């Protein structure tokens, strides 16, 4: 298929359609409302449903209901909206139902602002909702990757029977880039018998299921948490994604950065290379599971003197970076979070200050 020019938000909507998602529930919020606008037009064309909930709380439970019924389902929102959905996300994780959540982050806390931010790293990777659960979190750095990750999110959600999140800053949703769509996702979940409460015709057996997150028996609750834990351990083994940039050189500084921020870092790295300064970048593409071993290995390369986490936040991922580096190198941090994305020159000045 030929390339088209799309906004990240539109492309995420189209990717959901191509992944066979026929259920999209959402509540508008800047900077991701274009997903709803796009799918309001597109869903009827594929006999799908877009329903605007009365709030994000309602949307969260619409997602839970559709997922429990065995349907492919997605919602999109931005930071404050995800906070409202977090209760439902916890319930969906406990009930082990597959669903895709997209957070196109804006500045916070509170209502914050409408400009790009990466301030929801903790919320996405460490909880958000209550209880012992994790979200599998994919972090695209552009429109093409947003498409690929959105489609992949549905298969991962089904593989692990749980909520998967696409975490992009506002620019990922708002910028336009040429994009090519992969072939439509043809697969159907093969494990529907384990959880779905309907769709007997598409299932192997007539096993009756109950969607629930209440386990009053201590052993039952412990077993459910152990089942979740086993899935998170499997994710750590099988789903880690990352990209190295200029890491085949004898770099003296290693940057760890993701999403839009990593693209600014790449420009800075290219510019410093022209001056003879080698800097490497490790970009986590999955934020949970986190590329732990890869960061340790890249940071302990002999030429590497120190590591810096560069984020559009006040310092969140840096805690995971420190954990991975295990004290073998000094770990610095640079971040801005008002909505102005740091310029390549700013990053260069920060890096030169570390040399």
């Amino acid at each position, binding site marked *: 298929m030929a*390339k*088209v*020019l*799309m*906004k990240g938000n*539109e492309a995420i909507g*189209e990717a959901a359609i191509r992944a066979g998602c026929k259920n999209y529930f959402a509540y508008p919020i*800047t*900077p991701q409302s*274009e997903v709803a*606008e*796009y799918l309001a*037009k597109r869903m009827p064309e594929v006999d799908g449903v877009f329903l605007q909930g009365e709030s994000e709380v309602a949307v969260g439970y619409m997602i839970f209901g559709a997922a429990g019924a065995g349907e492919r389902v997605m919602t999109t929102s931005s930071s404050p909206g995800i906070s409202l959905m977090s209760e439902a996300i916890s319930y969906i994780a406990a009930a082990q139902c597959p669903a895709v959540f997209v957070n196109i982050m804006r500045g916070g806390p509170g209502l914050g*602002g*409408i*400009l790009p931010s990466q301030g929801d790293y903790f919320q996405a990777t460490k909880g958000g909702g209550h209880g012992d659960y994790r979200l599998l979190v994919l972090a695209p750095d552009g429109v093409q990757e947003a498409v690929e990750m959105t489609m992949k999110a549905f298969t991962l959600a089904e593989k692990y029977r749980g909520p998967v999140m696409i975490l992009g800053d*506002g*620019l990922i949703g*708002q*910028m*336009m*880039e*040429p994009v090519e769509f992969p072939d439509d996702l043809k697969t159907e979940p093969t494990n529907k018998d384990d959880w779905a409460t309907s769709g007997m015709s598409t299932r192997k057996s007539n096993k009756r299921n109950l969607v629930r997150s209440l386990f009053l028996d201590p052993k039952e609750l412990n077993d459910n948490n152990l089942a979740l834990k086993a899935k998170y351990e499997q994710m750590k083994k099988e789903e880690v994604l990352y990209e190295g940039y200029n890491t085949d050189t004898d770099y003296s500084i290693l940057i760890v950065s993701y999403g*839009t921020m990593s*693209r*600014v870092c*790449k*420009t800075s790295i290219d*510019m410093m290379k022209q001056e003879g300064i080698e800097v490497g970048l490790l970009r986590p593409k999955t934020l949970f599971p986190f590329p732990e071993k890869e960061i340790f290995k890249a940071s302990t390369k002999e030429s590497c003197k120190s590591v810096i986490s560069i984020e559009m936040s006040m310092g969140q991922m840096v805690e995971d970076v420190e954990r991975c580096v295990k004290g073998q190198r000094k770990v610095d941090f640079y971040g801005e979070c008002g*909505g102005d*994305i*740091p*310029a*390549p*020159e700013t990053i260069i000045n920060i890096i030169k200050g570390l040399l």
Partner: protein
Amino acid sequence: MNIDIKGIVVICGNYGSGKTETAVNLAAARKKDGVDVKIADLDLVNPYFRTREVRVSLEKMGIDVVLPNKKYMHADLPILAPAVAGMIQKPSELTILDAGGDDAGVTVLAALYDHLSRKKVHMLQVINPFRPFTENVKGCIRIKEEIERSSKMKITGLVGNANLIDETIPDHIYKGYDFLKDVSKETGLKIEFITIVSHLIPQLEMDRFTCPVLKINRKLNPPWKRV
């Protein structure tokens, strides 16, 4: 062929068709020709990549930029600066109104109807056939009708803005031009001009185009390209 457009020009079109990039480049090109230019950002629907982001560089060129009050610069609120009505009443040689996308983006024009209806206005629909919903003539006509209904105004001309940003090649320009001719034939609307990113121009057979061409120097770039 040079662009000689003057008067009040409203730039509209479907969401993401390239209205703002077209509007600010048109303002810059005409200013270079010695024309007095005013531009207003009427985009009330799009939160990022708006005319207001290039305010400083336009003002440096001597272009009068009308924007909402500075403290609301980053708000996603529908603010219409009172100065816009003033600039329609007393237009400069070229007055550009950069509207928002789709029918929702031009609703603001209906609020200015009293002022606009007394003037001759060029209402230009920007079309990029590589965007969703305008990849065929039918889609372009649907957007045209929706914009006309919502703005209470008639489209008077077409602007071809065929591009895939950095991945644009000559073939896209030729195909986009042929497509625009089809839209023009179907609607009876004149092709006012087409846009071509300046670095592609040496690679093109320019005599294939019988309409004026606006050279584009991209002004709305993501932060990693702002060096």
